[in-house]
């Protein structure tokens, strides 16, 4: 189980896609997953985020529902079947978002105490929110209400709010980084050099814990 964490715009999805292709070319089956992709709650969360009545506590619990559904119905079965699970964000993003919104961190942590400890936890770090803004702008998709923390009323406009919101997120991530032992990757470098580092780290992980008969898919054994 490999977690890729990082704030909005650091390139998580790009790197997950690259890792996935690379792992598959090396013969590993891969499941990739990420927030709001659950069958149970994904649609409901997206609908709720379109409106203007989603409260702070409700939001955290909706995300926790999405998480547990993916954990129980996607991640755990895939791990048991010998897949490499790549997850775009994990409980750390959920906990950081809650903390930035002034939610009791003991509460949110107790909710996520049912999560599985990942085998690797890669944190793509960009230290300045200004750099993140550049990426959001050049991506062409523009500012998102929630990624800009507009629900918190932090700035005059999307730009200012985004900067302040991401600055706070980075601060929380930095604190968690030592607490949860993140492997930090400097994501302000080129995609190619970050990808090379990630591949090296994954190779090391797979060499340290090679697939045993126990975690190989029964179907592979049967064939």
């Amino acid at each position, binding site marked *: 189980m490999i977690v890729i964490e990082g704030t909005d715009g650091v390139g998580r999805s790009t790197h997950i896609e690259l890792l996935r292709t690379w792992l598959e070319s090396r013969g590993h089956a891969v499941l990739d997953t990420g927030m709001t992709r659950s*069958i*149970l709650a994904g649609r409901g969360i997206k609908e709720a985020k379109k409106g203007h*009545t989603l*409260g702070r*506590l409700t939001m955290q619990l*909706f995300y926790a529902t999405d998480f547990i559904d993916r954990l129980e119905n996607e991640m755990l079965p895939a791990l048991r079947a010998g897949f490499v699970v790549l997850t775009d964000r994990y409980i750390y993003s959920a906990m950081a978002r809650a903390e930035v919104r002034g939610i*009791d961190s003991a509460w949110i942590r*107790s909710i996520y105490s*049912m999560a599985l400890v990942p085998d690797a936890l890669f944190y793509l770090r960009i230290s300045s929110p200004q750099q993140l803004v550049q990426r959001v702008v050049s991506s062409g998709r523009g500012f998102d209400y929630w990624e800009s923390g507009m629900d918190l009323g932090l700035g005059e406009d999307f730009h200012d709010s985004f900067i302040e919101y991401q600055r706070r997120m980075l601060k929380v991530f930095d604190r968690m980084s030592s607490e949860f032992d993140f492997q930090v990757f400097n994501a302000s470098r080129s995609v190619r050099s970050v990808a090379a580092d990630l591949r090296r780290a994954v190779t090391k992980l797979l060499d340290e814990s090679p697939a045993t008969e126990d975690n190989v898919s029964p179907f592979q054994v049967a064939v």
Partner: protein
Amino acid sequence: MISYGQHQFPGKLFIVEGTDGSGKSTQLALLHQWLKAEGYPVFFSEWNSSPLVKDTTKRAKKRHLFTPASFSLLHATDFADRTERDIIPPLKAGAIVLADRYIYTAFARDVARGCDRTWVRDVYSFAVRPTVAFFFRAPLDVAIDRIVSGRPNLKYYEAGMDLGWSDEPEESFTIFQGKILEEYDRMVSEFGLTVIDATRSIERQQREMRLLISQHLNKKKRGKSH
């Protein structure tokens, strides 16, 4: 975030709990009528009724998507939405909030489903502690009889069919309700629930409720509609 037992509001929160078929909704409706007639501003909130979560719950029930943990968390999401929208704001405004089922329903059902007792309580720790929490207690056979005779088809999750105890809905329901009742009984002292004997006459139960509630009402705060 303010935790259970630490909120201070001018309003009052009265809630009813009990197994299915215990008559709690009937009692709450009668109470509602009385409080309205007395001129109090009353707001009613029902378990599982958040407009944000409703579609997700409905779909999940229909397609049997729940595990005990996701069932628990989605119901907590629903409850959080109602707490943030329907419960705290009226209490701040000094109104009386009546809730049909509260966190104790989740504690009873989720633990009966196998969720960890402490974990479920932690999840709901943001809830407002009720001014009075009524637990309508009916013996298991009475409750089951009331439900089964009134409804020919027990629903999948209602009967605890997801837990695989029995392929017979009625048998599964009986086992499930038994576990739920056990959980309620241990919560009476844990949360100071007020037990109402649900086998007594409707009138007598209602009198008992009104007597208790009137001790918590501030007569001066009565509205002008009366």
